[in-house]
Each structure stands twice: as structure tokens, then as C-alpha cells.
């Protein structure tokens, strides 16, 4: 059909400019909401999943079983089979070497404990997150602790006492450099090294400029749902300070620490097959811990996020439907207003389907304009949204995700939605009797 329907439809849209824009606005708001929510949702999902991918899906966490988790447990419970440390609770101590023997599929075992302690250096004082990673954790699971690259000085020496390594920003805030001393709790430590900014950090303020160190949130409960939080807390090393695991055991053996055992499964061995074996091995040792694979945590988070995304998108879809109803109203009014014009078109030879097409393109075009503008505004909003959210959640590498499917889908969908909203009015217009249409004013 060579008849230039889009141009006439465009003219029609322009001839009732204010109403057209209001109609487009209705669609635009809906599309904006859908685009912003979906792209932010997908962005969050991607960011979280990337963290897991960085850590690796061959990693399994051993978390205290039945523990409400808030306070963690005494570090001694995770003891490295040192006779000096007596189990302080009914649960037995985990022996990593025994575990490794028991489950040959394990390639690495890493341990890390974390607690918040008062800190002072010079005349500055506050609170700081103190982490105690085992040597294996630093060497084998460096992605879990933000890369753990030493920028200045060195790592703690084996068997040394009083060595502390500072995160990049905590060193800056405390105003200390290698060789100077800081006090953690009531112990004096010597700064032996300062870390490079962690791979997972960006603009997260930890210590305030006033010299008063903020209390750093400790990783919360170690469950599947909070796994990401745990990882985040560990992976951002900038605001933390580090002592060796052995030293932490000696110093704070009976004090609760949020602790984590990380196990890597050998390549080629199925994680899901190994989990029951780990469970059995833990039971044999009498340790009240349960294995959770990163895959499980990621799946659970993805499921939760997916649900959240669906709910949000559904709410946004309602806005879109309201927009479509507004469009239907506009189109119906337009048909009533232009009845005479329809009569004219028919009298000079327009077929029913040409009239139908004219109105469908008219409404489809408005839908399309609304869709494209909504996409742009939605994209803008989600960039702002993710940067705010990212800051709030201390999530790094967090940006909205615009899949080609989302972009094309939204644009195509809004055209179809517009055309559908205009379908009934257009059908009504096409079926008008030309004589009656011509007689109308």
C-alpha cells in the first residue's frame, strides 16, 4: 500500500498536539517505570552474580549450623587443631587437615574471622573491622578478600606477633604509614604493610574525615540469603585492618568472631556431589557446621531478586496499562472528532482497512514515541538509581543492564500496545457508514 499513512497519522498527532503529548506521557511514564525497574533489577543481579563468578562456583562455605549467626562464634571453635585451644562450646573443633583427608575432592581450605575493635593511632580513635585471614585464604582465595595486594611493606610474617596490615583507606584515615604503631583493643601492633585499594571498592566511605572512625558493619548472619553480604564485607578490604589468623586465635580465642571456612573443590569434581560428603565429614568430626556452595547462595539470591524484579515490573506494567487505557480514550475521542474526515476519506476511495490502518498507525506511533522517550528517561533514571543504590549498598561495579531484548522489546511492545489500544476505536472508525460520517459535524 503506497498510501502514505504514517505521514497523515503524524499530521493528525501534531494537529492535536497537547492531547497527543498527554497521551504519549501516559505511555512514557509506564515505559519509564518498566525500563528503570528492570534495568536496575538486572543490574543488581549481574553485580551480585559477578561477585560470585569472581569467587568461583567451585567454592563452598562452611557456616555454623543452627547458629542465629548475629554474633558469630568463638574463633577457637574453628581452631587449626592446636592442642592449646580447647573447645569452648559443646561443638567440636573443625580440623581442616582432617577434613581435607576425609574429602579428597577438596583442593584448598581457607579460614577467616572478623570482629570490630576499638582502634587508636596517635590522637585518632574509633572502631575498625579487624579481619584475621589464614595464609591459605590470602593465597588461595584472594578474590574473596579484594585481591589482597600489598602496596607498601609486607604481609605478616609466619609466627610473628604484633604485625598488622592496613586496608588502603584505613591507613589513610588513621594517618599511619609502615613502621608506625596502632592499638587494636588493648594490644599494640606495628604496621608492617598497607594494601592496595581492594578490587571490589568504589566510593564507599568508611572512616569519616573528622578522625573518628565509624563502626564498620560486620557481616551478618551466614545464611544463603546473606551470603552476598558476607562476601561483600570480606571483599572490601579498604576500611579494614588485618592480623594473621594464628595471632587472632591467640589474642581473642574466647571472644566471638564472625567466622567463615572456605573450601575449594578440585576442578572436574561436581560440587553438588561433594556437598553431602562434606556434610558427612563434618558430622564425623562432630562439628556443627553446614556446607553451602556459592552456587546455592547465588541461586537463592537470583531467585529472590528475580521475584522482586517480577513484582516491581508488574507494578510498572500497571502504569503501562493505565497509559494504554488513556491512549484508547484519546483514540476514541479522535475517531469521534474526525468522523467527518473519515467520511471524506471514504468518499474519495479509502478502503475500510486503509482507515483502520490510519488510526492504528496513529496510535501505534504515539505508543512508539512514548516507548522511545520512556526508554531514554528510564535509562537515565536507572543510571542515577544504580549509582545511589550502589553507594547505599556498597556494591561495586554496579550499573544498570540494558539487554538488546529489553531495548527492542520495550520499543516494539509500546508500538504494539499503542496499536492495540487504538484497535477498537480504529475498527469503529473503519466501519463507519460514509454517508452518516459525512453528515456529522
Amino acid at each position, binding site marked *: 500500500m503506497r*498510501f502514505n499513512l504514517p505521514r497523515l497519522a503524524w499530521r493528525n498527532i501534531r494537529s492535536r498536539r497537547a492531547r497527543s503529548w498527554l497521551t504519549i506521557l501516559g505511555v512514557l511514564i509506564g515505559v519509564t517505570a518498566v525500563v528503570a525497574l528492570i534495568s536496575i533489577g538486572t543490574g543488581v543481579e549481574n553485580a551480585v552474580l559477578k561477585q560470585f563468578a569472581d569467587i568461583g562456583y567451585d567454592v563452598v562455605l562452611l557456616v555454623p549450623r543452627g547458629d542465629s549467626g548475629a554474633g558469630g562464634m568463638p574463633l577457637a571453635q574453628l581452631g587449626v587443631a592446636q592442642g592449646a585451644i580447647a573447645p569452648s562450646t559443646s561443638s567440636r573443633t573443625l580440623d581442616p587437615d582432617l577434613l581435607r583427608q576425609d574429602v579428597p575432592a577438596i583442593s584448598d581450605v581457607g579460614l577467616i574471622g572478623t570482629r570490630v575493635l576499638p582502634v587508636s593511632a596517635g590522637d585518632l580513635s574509633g572502631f575498625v573491622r579487624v579481619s584475621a585471614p589464614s595464609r591459605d585464604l590470602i593465597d588461595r582465595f584472594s578474590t574473596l578478600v579484594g585481591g589482597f595486594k600489598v602496596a607498601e611493606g609486607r604481609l605478616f610474617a609466619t609466627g610473628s606477633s604484633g604485625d598488622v596490615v592496613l586496608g588502603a583507606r584505613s591507613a589513610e584515615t588513621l594517618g599511619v604509614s609502615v613502621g608506625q604503631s596502632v592499638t587494636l583493643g588493648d594490644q599494640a601492633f606495628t604496621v608492617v604493610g598497607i594494601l592496595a585499594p581492594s578490587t571490589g571498592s568504589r566510593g564507599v566511605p568508611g572512616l569519616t574525615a573528622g578522625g573518628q572512625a565509624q563502626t564498620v558493619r560486620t557481616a551478618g548472619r551466614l545464611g544463603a540469603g546473606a551470603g552476598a553480604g558476607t562476601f561483600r564485607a570480606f571483599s572490601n578490604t579498604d576500611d579494614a585492618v588485618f592480623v594473621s589468623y594464628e595471632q587472632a586465635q591467640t589474642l581473642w580465642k574466647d571472644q566471638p568472631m564472625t567466622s567463615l571456612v572456605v573450601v575449594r573443590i578440585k576442578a572436574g569434581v561436581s560440587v553438588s556431589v561433594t556437598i553431602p560428603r562434606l556434610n558427612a565429614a563434618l558430622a564425623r568430626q562432630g562439628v556443627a557446621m553446614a556446607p553451602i556452595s556459592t552456587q546455592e547462595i547465588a541461586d537463592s539470591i537470583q531467585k529472590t531478586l528475580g521475584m522482586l524484579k517480577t513484582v516491581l515490573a508488574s507494578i510498572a506494567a500497571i502504569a503501562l496499562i493505565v497509559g494504554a487505557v488513556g491512549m484508547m480514550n484519546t483514540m476514541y475521542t479522535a475517531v469521534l472528532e474526525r468522523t467527518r474526515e473519515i467520511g471524506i476519506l471514504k468518499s*474519495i*476511495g479509502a*478502503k475500510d482497512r486503509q482507515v483502520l490502518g490510519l488510526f492504528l498507525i496513529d496510535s501505534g506511533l504515539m505508543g512508539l514515541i512514548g516507548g522511545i522517550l520512556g526508554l531514554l528517561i528510564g535509562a537515565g533514571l536507572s543510571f542515577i538509581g544504580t549509582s545511589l543504590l550502589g553507594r547505599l549498598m556498597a556494591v561495586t561495579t554496579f550499573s544498570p543492564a540494558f539487554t538488546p531484548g529489553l531495548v527492542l522489546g520495550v520499543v516494539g511492545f509500546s508500538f504494539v500496545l499503542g496499536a492495540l489500544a487504538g484497535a477498537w476505536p480504529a475498527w469503529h472508525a473503519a466501519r463507519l457508514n460514509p454517508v452518516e460520517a459525512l453528515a456529522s459535524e
Partner: protein
Amino acid sequence: MISLRNVHKTYHPGPHEVRAVRGVDLDVPAGILAVIMGPSGSGKSTLLHLIGCLDTPTAGEIELDGTNLSQLSSDTRAELRARRIGFVFQKFNLIPNLSAVENAELPMLLAGVSRHEARTRARAALERVALKERADHRPAELSGGEQQRVAIARALVNSPDVILADEPTGNLDTETGERVLLLLKELKGQGKTAIVVTHNPEVASLADFLVYMRDGKRVDSLERTRQEVRR
């Protein structure tokens, strides 16, 4: 050749039916100018709509060069309107959003003529009605006479065989009415069939063939008698 056989048209606009056309027989040979006269409500416009495929008769048959119009599909009738019939209305009936030339080219675009050719032919048609200079103006910027000339250009642009005009001078002053009259006269010279509904005796004077309508029926003989009596 247009022929009507016992054509009836009944409307049901409200509780009471309106019998607009009540059994009309009419033959209009090709190439002539026929004028239909009669008082308001006599069914002359309805008759014109029936001939122009805008409406279908309730009973009876209408043939255009042997084609029975009432048996055609809605699409075929639309095509017929686009290619073979040109309408001129009392109220001009131009599309307000489109310029004169865009209005004039519409029937061609609807009939599938290429945009370039449509534009060229539309401009030529406007030139024929002496509106070349006003081609890019919207109807609201044109006078009544100019608008009617655009409408005539639009009616002629597809070179239809039949021109149907419903009181083409009804909304025009004498001078512009005369211009329209001259255009109608020209049509006759080009061998087109024209059927004009009018109250205007000047238009009627051009007719090769006069039809009088009253109460939905032809009353030609009665009218002739009356005029003779008056004379």
C-alpha cells in the same frame, strides 16, 4: 452509462423509518451533464450517494457501465470511488490538516499511485482550476471558492468517468459560483458524465438532462407541466 431500476432507500434513524428514495428509474448516458433538482428532503442527495457507491440501495438495482453496484464488496466499491467516481460536495469536505495539493493527491495515494506521480498530477489538477499558487495552503487559508476548486481538482485528479456534485455552488457567492459552473461546463466538453444536484437555476441551465425529485420519486413530467402552466 448509469442506470437505476426501481431503486429504493429507506433509513431507520429513529423510531420511524425514512423512505428517502421510493422507486426511481433513471438512465444517464455517458458524456452528458444531468442535473437533479427538487426541494430539500426530496431524496436527491441520497440518490447521488447511491450512484456514487457511498451507500447501498434497500431495493432495486444500480448499474455503472453494466456493473451491478449493489453486489460489490465494500473494498471494490471503495476502489470504484477512488478510480471511477469523483465527488464534489456543498461543504467542500477537504481534510483540514492537509494542504491543497495534499488534499488533491489523496485519491491517487489511496488508489496506489506512486507519491511522485501523485504529487505531479495533483499540481497539474490544481493548475487546471487556477490554484497553482495556492497549492501549499491549508483549507482554512483558502476562500470558499478556492476550497471548492481544490475539491474539484481532487475529484478530477484520478480522471474519473463520473463526476457527482452535491450542490457545488450552494455555499459560494455568485462570482465564485460562476467559476465552478465554467469548470462543470469544461467537464462536459471532456466527455465525462456528470450528475449535479442543485437548487441553482444557472447550473440547471447547463443540463443536457433535468431530473426533478419530490418525496423520493421522479416527477419530471409533473414539473414540466407545472412550468408550462406557469409560462
